[in-house]
């Protein structure tokens, strides 16, 4: 693992945030348009507290931001962060692609 290329706690948080279908759905929803937590809660057959928890996990991963407006808490998807999340996962993939190619080069010297 290379600290300079990948921040593992970040990778971990992103994986954790995206590991749940409800959270992926919330992210999809708020990337298109901001929603209050209560509006989100009405979309899912679960308690307000449960939805709030899902939003908190997404927020911790930096995928959404929350803003207070009056008595409402508005959730917006962070498009750039979602893009970055994708590249964090992409960097890990690249690390392995490089390893596989380098392994192949060493094996080629045998021939």
């Amino acid at each position, binding site marked *: 693992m290379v600290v300079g290329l990948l921040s*593992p706690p970040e990778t971990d948080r992103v994986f*954790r945030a995206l590991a749940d279908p409800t959270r992926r759905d919330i992210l999809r929803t708020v990337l298109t348009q901001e929603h209050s937590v209560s509006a989100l809660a009405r979309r899912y057959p679960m308690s307000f507290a449960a939805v709030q928890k899902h939003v908190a996990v997404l927020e911790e991963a930096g995928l959404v931001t929350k803003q207070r407006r009056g008595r409402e808490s508005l959730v917006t998807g962070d498009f750039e962060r979602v893009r970055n999340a994708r590249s964090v996962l992409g960097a890990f993939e690249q690390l392995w692609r*490089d390893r596989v190619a380098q392994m192949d080069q060493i094996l080629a010297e045998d021939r």
Partner: protein
Amino acid sequence: MPIVRVDKDLDNHTMTVVAEYDAPVERVWQLYADPRQLERFWGPPTWPATVVDHDLIPGGRVTYFMTGPDGERAAGYWDVVEVEAPRRFMVEDGFADDTGQPNPDMPKTRMELELDERGDGGTTMTVVSTFASNAAMTQMLEMGMEDGMSQAMGQIDAILAEAG
């Protein structure tokens, strides 16, 4: 190219790499079993690795550091969990500080490697990397797996595409 497949499974927070080599299982195993060969491929091209300790037995430890383009160092270690030479090993890959001591604040990635003989004498390598977990994550993963979905990277692409 020797890479056959890379699958990212968000529900299980794993990444699976499958690669094919035109070399027998024993030869591919040597790439990991021999520290001098391991350091030739473990680091990215711009971050070559140096393997310090190499004790690839259950309970053993492999330590390494990588040197970046500006001379900066990133150290890591494997806690070796299981070894079935020459086909399989499982290690916990973690970060170390400048003195090579494990950094407990950083999550570890589990790496499970398997080598399978192909009919033509070649080798299929399967590496499953599992990102660090904790009780809360496990719970959420269980929630995520209820619908039995095994979603790949395409999901993020789909999310991005939908949001336009």
